[in-house]
């Protein structure tokens, strides 16, 4: 393996999620963007993807945003997956590593989706143990992202925002505050998005995510918001983002787009808009 220098820390600016369709344009044209985030699951083999990542990390700070650790699984995290992630972290030396407050796998079946946890003391305990194991193995703290959810469990006893805060307090992990997810879940379940934002411990928030979602309408007039990352950030989420920046200060912010990925110029435009909102906020928490 070529000897690589560590990528820099993630700046408190706007970055974009890098997906395969943009590998070449980013590696060759090096568009002006402060940082990039990738899913480690796309780089766990060899060949072309890893070649691109090695090339791209020489020019940009990189964040690894996992979707496969299944931190909420009652039977623990998959050792093989953790080992693969660890190898990639050692190779890329990313500025940030993050995962989700969700689960995907049980009993050896991996369902490739971010499934909702019940917010109970038991789930909190299991999640914290899994996060601690991951942090120990990766020799660093990770950020944990709040999910978009389409259901709630009857036996949940803790509001999601308190659950998020408790996870950070118990494990020392940071919070990846996905503003779009807060908005989607708030609409779907009828809670106050701003109250959620204000309940998160400011010092723990190390990154913000922004993305588009879809309003799915049923014939009888009912509707639900689906977090499909397939469009521009909607106006309500931009307003909530401005409030988040006002509350948390300047935090690295990422534009995510996974469905029908558009030309990179669209992502750069969205990032520029986020940058404008960050610039309006003078407090730089990373410098505090």
């Amino acid at each position, binding site marked *: 393996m070529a000897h690589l220098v560590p990528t820099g820390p993630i700046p408190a600016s706007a970055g974009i999620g890098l997906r395969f369709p943009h590998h070449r344009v980013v590696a060759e044209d090096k568009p002006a963007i402060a940082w990039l985030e990738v899913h480690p699951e796309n780089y766990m083999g060899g060949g072309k993807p890893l070649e691109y990542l090695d090339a791209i990390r020489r020019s940009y700070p990189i964040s690894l945003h996992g979707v496969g650790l299944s931190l909420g699984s009652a039977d623990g995290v998959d050792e093989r997956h953790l080992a693969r992630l660890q190898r990639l972290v050692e190779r890329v030396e990313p500025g940030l590593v993050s995962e989700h407050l969700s689960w995907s796998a049980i009993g050896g079946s991996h*369902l*490739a989706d971010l499934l909702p946890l019940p917010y109970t003391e038991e789930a909190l305990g299991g999640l914290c143990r899994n996060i601690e194991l991951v942090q120990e193995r990766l020799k660093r703290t990770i950020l944990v992202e709040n999910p978009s959810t389409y259901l*709630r469990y009857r036996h949940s006893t803790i509001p999601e925002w308190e659950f998020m805060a408790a996870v950070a307090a118990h494990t020392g992990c940071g919070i990846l505050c996905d503003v779009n997810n807060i908005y989607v879940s708030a609409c779907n379940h009828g809670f106050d998005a701003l109250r959620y934002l204000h309940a998160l411990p400011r010092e723990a928030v190390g990154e913000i995510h922004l993305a588009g979602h879809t309003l799915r309408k049923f014939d009888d007039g009912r509707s*639900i918001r689906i977090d499909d990352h397939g469009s521009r950030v909607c106006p309500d989420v931009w307003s909530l983002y401005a409030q988040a920046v006002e509350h948390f200060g300047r935090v690295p912010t990422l534009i995510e787009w996974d469905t029908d990925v558009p030309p990179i110029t669209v992502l750069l435009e969205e990032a520029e808009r986020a940058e404008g909102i960050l610039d309006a906020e003078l407090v730089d928490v990373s410098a505090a």
Partner: protein
Amino acid sequence: MSALLELQQAFVASLLCEADRAVHDRIIGDGLAAAERLRIYRNTFISTLTAALRMTYPAVDRLVGREFFDAAAEQLIHAHPPSSAYLNEYGEAFADFLAAFEPARTLPYLPDVARFEWALSAAANASDVPPLTAEALATIDPAHHAALRFEPHPSVRVLALDYPADQIADAVTSGNQAAMAEVDLSNGPLGLVVHRGANGVESQRLTPEAFIFVSRLCAGEPLARLLQDAPTDAPAVIAEQLTKGRLAAFRIQQGKSL
């Protein structure tokens, strides 16, 4: 059993089999019923995995059409859900599944096309290992040649197919109607070796003799035994595997019966 473990098992059972409703009682059904809420998760997980399978099996997708592919993929996913989050590893069971899939019976070559595409995908995603060089081989004491065993590069797949699946896959993915018309299904069985070299993934047809020889070479048989009943051009075949980067390492195993 822990309440969380029980819930997660019931949730998975419901996603894999809609008729399993044990988890419904645990879900608040205001506005949308539990079944409708779970269907959102089911749709996401099926469409994510179907998209992953379509990336791996583009020729199968074109041969059967989108609707057929989606239906076959959904059945495969229910029968064989992924065992890890590394989805490049997912879908090896598709060829055998298609071989037993009643609606695919009229396309007897389909499982072989899937086998071929799986080999391409496995080769593309195999871990990075530097290939064995002629210089490294030249350092071996000739006295040890008889006990020499080779290890294939992790990207190497040797395939024995009944149908010319390589030709079918190339023609269908390039949309070349003329090439498709030229496919002669009686042109088989055939032996292929697929690997990822300096120029990317390539596949090569081998003569029956060379196929058997390369299969044994890649299985790590010692050189002395390999050469006992080898084709006359065996040295050239070994040299070709070396220059193409299909060999990753060697070891010298002494004191074993050959």
